[in-house]
């Protein structure tokens, strides 16, 4: 019976020691995250709450803010131009996501099936290069290329017998141009994602399907695409979140026009906030945009549950 008497204080000491080590480790952990925590708190967490708070006030920066309750949100749902900017953004975002994913997957499958090692590096470089230019640079030179009168694109279309396409000077043309430009720049991102996902498809699965007599198309749709579906979902979510924030290209190329054809949700926010100095209303629009992005991303994940195949 003597051993418990000895080991009891021993155990207690050990527990005390363990607790002290744990406390020291915790202190170290907090010290390590302190810097990131400070910046993320001040410049992300707090601003999210502040945006939410501001959305319940009327504030023009000059006079003190006044409580507005839900008035800013009510105003949003009866504000035709702003609602239209959301509609435009959603339509353009859908077009961008669909084109970017289809084209990215098509090119990735081609490279994956046919290209040599050199070919792979060459095409990867070619499709990635547009991502290295800033959106501002792209908006500038694409603006020249798509110019209705002097642009090289209409020149070449003219040789094919199609003349004077009003790319940036008509509402639908401007929307299409901006969609095309975003896809042109972003497709390399999707392409690189899909190529590395396709490379990771196990060879034995492909051999098995080949031995079972499946042709290339069948293998693609029945084996490869299901296997890389988590990557497709990821690419769709990222592309959609980015497209919903579309600002630089329409702001630089068309200033939201012609008329309000390319006034996106974020351009509306910029105008109400930084031009009309309605900070409360602009914050309400910002919160609605955030909720919309969260909702659609959630729907994407839910819908994908039925389709996406996780290994």
């Amino acid at each position, binding site marked *: 019976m003597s051993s418990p008497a000895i080991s009891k204080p021993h155990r207690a000491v050990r527990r005390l020691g363990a607790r002290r080590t744990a406390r020291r480790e915790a202190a170290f952990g907090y010290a390590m995250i302190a*810097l990131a925590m400070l910046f993320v708190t001040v410049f992300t967490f*707090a601003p999210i709450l502040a945006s939410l708070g501001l959305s319940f006030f009327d504030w023009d920066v000059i006079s003190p803010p006044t409580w507005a309750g839900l008035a800013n949100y009510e105003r949003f749902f009866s504000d035709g131009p702003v609602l239209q900017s959301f509609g435009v953004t959603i339509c353009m975002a859908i077009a961008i996501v669909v084109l970017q994913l289809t084209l990215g997957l098509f090119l990735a499958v081609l490279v994956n099936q046919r290209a040599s090692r050199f070919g792979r590096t060459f095409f990867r470089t070619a499709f990635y290069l547009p991502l290295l230019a800033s959106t501002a640079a792209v908006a500038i030179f694409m603006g020249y290329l798509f110019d209705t009168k002097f642009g090289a694109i209409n020149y070449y279309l003219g040789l094919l017998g199609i003349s004077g396409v009003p790319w940036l000077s008509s509402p639908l043309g401007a929307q299409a141009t901006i969609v095309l430009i975003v896809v042109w720049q972003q497709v390399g991102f999707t392409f690189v994602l899909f190529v*590395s996902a396709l490379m990771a498809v196990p060879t034995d699965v492909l051999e098995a399907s080949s031995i079972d007599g499946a042709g*290339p198309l069948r293998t693609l749709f029945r084996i490869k695409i299901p296997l890389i579906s988590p990557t497709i979902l990821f690419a769709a979510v990222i592309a959609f979140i980015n497209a919903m924030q579309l600002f630089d290209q329409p702001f630089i190329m068309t200033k939201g026009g012609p008329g309000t054809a390319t006034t996106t949700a974020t351009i509306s926010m910029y105008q109400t906030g930084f031009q009309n100095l309605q900070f409360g209303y602009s914050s309400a629009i*910002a919160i609605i945009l955030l909720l919309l992005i969260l909702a659609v991303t959630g729907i994407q994940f839910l819908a994908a549950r039925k389709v996406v195949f996780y290994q």
Partner: protein
Amino acid sequence: MSTTTTIVTGRPDTRHPVVGRRRRAFSIGRIAGLIALILAAVFALGPLLWAVTTSLRTPAQAFENPPQWIPWNPDFGNYAAVFEQVPIGQFFLNSMIVTVLIVVGQTITCTLSGYAFAMVSFPGKNMIFGAFLATMMVPLQTIIIPVFLIIKSFGLTDSLASLIIPALGSAFGTFLMRQYFMQMPRELGEAARIDGATQFGVFWHVYARMAAPAISTLAILNFSGFWAEFYRPLIFLQSQSNFTLPLGLVGLQGNLGTGSISVVLAGVVLSMIPSVLLFIFAQRYFIAGVTAGSSR
């Protein structure tokens, strides 16, 4: 991360060893596929090549169609002109200061926090990390007004610091570094601890060194991202002497109207040089950066 690249480039093409017959049967398909790829590459590179070659034509020639795809008589006058018309050297310097300081700052904050979230246990860790992750979905535009007000209250409006300071911490960077540290064996640290290393010593001498690929990826993602940034400079900066390159170029285009596009294009081409150089020397980290987020 680097393994992705080796897989991409290093696997011999032994996918269908059986079917010499089928190969021939699909050779038309193969050629069509190759043509489609080359066509896509032409469309991807065409506008960039046009920007470069047109920047080498005289302002009068720049409007002529068809465009000259090979600069037989390159005219570098536009490159001199762009320096005369706007303080593009100043824009370049401003962009460099902002980008480099953000890259350095985020490397420090994200490496420290990413390590803590991966390797150190402390109360509330999962909750805090969850909060970090949740902010990754929040658009910049949603928080821009409060950030602008905070900047203003610090007296930093219209300064380079207004772009740098808010970007020094990053939820995405923390996430990226954590993912990398999570794959590292814990035994190394435990062994070093038994040998008497401090907790920080373990991080600094053992793990931080092993994290070089992830640090390079984060640094390169940040460099190309912040170098190209347009939205925050547009809102935070007012005086031309503080403009970064994208903002300055848009101003140049606006001032000149459609007067001499070749001068504007010279500026555009100059603005792309740092990212392109970086890409040439560190392509695999760009590729790793693309795939980094998808391994959630």
